[in-house]
């Protein structure tokens, strides 16, 4: 029913494009949780809105033609219709289902080592323990291939000292079925922690 129109990015979308921010020389304090910020780093995200904000990252990566892999187990997969409703190209998103944290990290090692992925998300669910040797290897590979590795963890506890950016997320309800998803950097090796990033998202169909 709606006519096809040329789609222009909104201001938020524009700001989410890291190259725009870089070229325009936006202030460093205006931190945007984007691919540019976390490329070549290990990042740990937890909290109430971790999944939704990570899906935004995947979308950014796909907009930049960066292949993305999502490693999880079958009991902690995202609901694919929700991801598609956010604009994600599911055909191009590599999903790997592995049973435990160690296998997930080893699969991530194989993927990042190829240098072909711009973003690898590892959903650890409630598991927190990862062999330090594997994490060290992942860090080296991420730096070498400028790949962003995001760990989704169930708790705010640390994965280890090698994590370069650790962030917690919070979701608050706003009027008319909108939710404000806020990400707060708890640890950031490249700048002072405490910076925040916000996105306003709708609830899934039926949630208001």
């Amino acid at each position, binding site marked *: 029913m709606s006519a096809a129109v040329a789609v222009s990015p909104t*201001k938020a979308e524009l700001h989410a494009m890291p190259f725009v921010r870089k070229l*325009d020389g936006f202030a460093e304090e205006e931190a945007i949780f984007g691919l540019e910020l976390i490329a070549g780093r290990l990042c740990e995200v937890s909290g109430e809105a971790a999944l939704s904000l990570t899906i935004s990252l995947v979308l950014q990566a796909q907009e930049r033609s960066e292949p993305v892999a999502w490693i999880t187990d079958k009991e902690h997969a995202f*609901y694919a219709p929700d991801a598609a409703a956010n604009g994600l190209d599911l055909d191009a998103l590599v999903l790997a289902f592995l049973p435990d944290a160690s*296998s997930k990290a080893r699969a991530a090692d194989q993927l990042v080592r190829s240098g072909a992925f711009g973003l690898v998300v590892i959903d650890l669910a409630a598991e927190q323990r990862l062999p330090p040797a594997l994490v060290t290897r992942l860090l080296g590979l991420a730096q070498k291939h400028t790949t962003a590795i995001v760990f989704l963890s169930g708790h705010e506890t640390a994965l280890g000292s090698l994590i370069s950016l650790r962030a917690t997320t919070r979701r608050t309800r706003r009027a008319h079925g909108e939710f404000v998803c806020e990400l707060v950097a708890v640890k950031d090796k490249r700048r002072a922690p405490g910076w925040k990033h916000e996105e306003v998202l709708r609830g899934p169909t039926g949630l208001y």
Partner: protein
Amino acid sequence: MKRCCVDRLACIELPSLPLQLLLQDQPEWKGFPCAVVDQDKPNGELLWVNEKARRLGILPGMRYGSALGLSSELRAAEMPAHRIEDAVQKLVEALQKFSPYIEPCAEEPGVFWIDASGLLHLYESLDVWGSAVRKALSAIGYVSIMSVGFTRFGTYAIAKASRYKKEGAVVFADPSQELAATRRVPLLRIGLTPKTLTLLNKLAVRTVEDFLKLPAAGIKRRFGDHAHRLHQLGTGDLWAPLQPAPPPDPHERVLDLDDEEKDSEKLLFLVKRLLDPLLLRLLSKGQALLEVTCVFEQEHGETLTELIRPAEPTLDAAMLMGLVRLRLESMKVHPGVTRLVMKALGVRATVEQLRLFVEKPKRDLKAANRAIARVRAAFGNDVVVRARLENGHLPEARFSYEAMTEVPEAQPRVVPRRSLVRYFKPTPLLLPPRPAREPDGWLVRGISHGPVSRSVGPYVLSGGWWRKEVERDYYFVELKSGSLCWVYYDKRRRRWFMQGKVA
């Protein structure tokens, strides 16, 4: 209603701006009941509706499918957020011709506050000024209402309540007059949600005066943040100075030369020095270059002005430089140029245009294919998959997984509004039974997450009668910890299950 940073403040409202934009796009819909929906699907929510639709009982907040049940003539479409942003920007530019200080309302598209101080030197009266503003907006296809007073909330409420004033503006001579009129405004007009209005009506709170007498803390607790904010605005507790939109950026760059320059080749490089930052400036604003004017100021005060217009708006510097070179080759630059001015005119760029400007990443998809082959070899063939959407009815039937051997280039879509994403449990988790009494203290995720504090639903799903009938009532339940779970009650098994959670 205590303070104001300007002598006179005006509020102009364009009622249901997104709907006005929709009718501009689809003029043939004017005789029909129309609505703007958040998504063009039966489940989409009606956000704005016109008077014809209201008369048929179609109201904002209804589902598109239900509204079509009331009138099959209903016309509805989505109105992308960027289109509304563009319209607001254009309206600000149009209003800046009447006052330099315009503040668009961040929460309600179509509401603008204007500094109306000092205009009596230019206009006979503020009513005449108001007529001129409304005429200008009418000329570009918008219906508007205006009030001129002294406070932000007062002018807003009066503009909302003065729907039938055909021309000019409602002008108040002094603050007490404005205050008295504001207090009489029916609550129905000031943008409270239907639910809040119903509750307030039961309490016989029907005007702004009644509303402002209520205690602020109670409003927040009982009616939420939106009503509380309006209350604070009304009482003046949320006073803020006018925050006008910045004046338009001319996108202009100037280069003064120490010595005169006659060589067109060298001039070309000077043009490039100015063109690149102009393109970056446009890019940072999400615009592409529509045309560029090069002004070559020569010695003795003569100027050469050249307008260069590409075939379509672009950010491609190489292509633009090609056009400039062709123009310079045909120009006679004598005497030499001492000053160069470049003015760019931009238009909103599409994502594709912006993407062209970016360096393509050098990721090798064949290497990605080899990597997933190694993962399959190490962990099993069914480990690497892709999700595929299906036409199912039940949540678990709406998608499936299929083996993935090749990684194609991603083609993401741009969606007008993004939404939260849920985790999905393929094997729903059996929940403890729900106590029969309210408040039930139902512990969905154990004692650490606390009891259910709010639930939204039910959304009834049934099907599978040809095989094994399924009848489920889906709910979103919010726990005291803030966790949002997606649960259902299986009517046949008489059990509650957790299908997933919003994260």
